[in-house]
């Protein structure tokens, strides 16, 4: 393996920014490459009103007073101080599932095996306390990004080297025909995130302990005038925009508690921002 420093946003190889995802996955053998490309020099990291360089670290975002509350709090409650110093915004949006079967290399539907992909979801019939309560029939993984939920609530847009897209369109539910969980094309680099100002916003996160844990349920809400968007982390294989209430959830035998937690946090979030 070699490590190159990118001199432009066009290159061959696997991009690495803070490496907090890439390095553990490489070491676990879940990711393989001949060429790592350090993109820290070519991805912007500056912060301006309504505009954030995709290379900004979560630590930069958690203490910038110009950032909307929902995004600041999502960053402040994500991961640990060391990881927030290292991890970038784009890398956070592109993190892989924390599904323990996937991380331990079980040959599930999201893993390549000798002749294609695995054909089982081990979590559905196995241990799924932390798994999805929406859209969980094919893969029951729960999207772990607090930050993505916040950006979805803000209706943020991404600018990449190839296109501009709403953050929702970065993600896709895996299917039998196409197992990918993002729409990012090989070689496409995320450069910037933009969003309009909002009147009030909030992020609430339920976790196993008060700090330093992935979201069991994260609730992001942002209000502009009479219009409020609510997005959830930890409840579906992708960041989940809530339409209506939680009654349409389809929990698994051992994670129905997440529906109650989500319902309570959504109610509290709406009350907090006067929605």
């Amino acid at each position, binding site marked *: *393996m*070699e*490590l190159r420093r990118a001199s432009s946003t066009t290159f061959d190889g696997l991009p*690495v920014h803070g*490496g*907090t995802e890439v*390095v*553990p996955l*490489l*070491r*676990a053998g879940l990711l393989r490459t001949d060429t*790592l490309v*350090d993109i820290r020099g070519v991805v912007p990291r500056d912060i301006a009103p309504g505009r954030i360089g995709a290379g900004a670290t979560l*630590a930069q975002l958690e203490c910038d007073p110009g950032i909307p509350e929902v995004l600041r709090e999502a960053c*402040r409650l994500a*991961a*640990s*101080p*060391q*990881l927030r*110093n*290292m991890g970038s915004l784009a890398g956070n949006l592109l993190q892989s599932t924390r599904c323990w079967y996937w991380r331990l290399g079980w040959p599930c539907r999201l893993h390549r095996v000798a002749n294609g992909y695995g054909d089982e979801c081990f979590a559905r019939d196995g241990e799924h306390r932390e798994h999805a309560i929406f859209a969980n029939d094919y893969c029951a993984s729960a999207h772990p990004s607090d930050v993505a939920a916040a950006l979805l609530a803000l209706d943020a847009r991404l600018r990449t080297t190839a296109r501009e897209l709403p953050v929702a369109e970065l993600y896709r539910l895996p299917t039998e025909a196409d197992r990918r969980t993002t729409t990012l094309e090989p070689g496409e680099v995320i450069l910037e995130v933009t969003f309009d100002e909002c009147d009030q916003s909030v992020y609430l996160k339920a976790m196993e302990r008060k*700090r*330093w844990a992935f979201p069991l349920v994260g609730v992001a809400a942002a209000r502009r005038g009479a219009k409020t968007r609510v997005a959830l982390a930890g409840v579906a294989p992708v960041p989940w925009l809530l339409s209506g209430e939680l009654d349409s959830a389809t929990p698994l035998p051992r994670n129905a508690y997440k529906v109650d937690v989500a319902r309570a946090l959504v109610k509290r979030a709406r009350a907090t921002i006067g929605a």
Partner: protein
Amino acid sequence: MQLTVNGHQYEVHGEVGTTLAEALREELSLTGTKIACGEGHCGACTVLVDDEPVLSCITLVHAVDGARVTTIEGLRDHPMIDAFVRSDALQCGFCTPGQIVSAVALVESEPAPTTEQIRHAMAGNLCRCGAYPKIEEAIRTWQG
């Protein structure tokens, strides 16, 4: 590649994929930095890169080519060490180098941190022995 550790220049030869923690411990024999989980969860491997606490077990050594690294060995004379001893802020001691590195970074930017600030800044350093109350005391009283 070149690495500056605790003010000394080193030449490092490990292949790409070697972590900073492995390079420090195995190539430079700076074994104060500990590796426990090896995957970013516990903070035992915390070092400063350009004065910011990072996890050396998931940092590729080639990614910090030219950077300034501070390990526990470089903090020998920092008053935080005495504070940990005074407060008896350890049991087995395995997490302690990482705890002290994070604590030093905190007080260098905020010399008199509140309890809330201490808990927020130290949240990434786990202690299996549960010495947390004493660690908090050491940081609260580090100036003597």
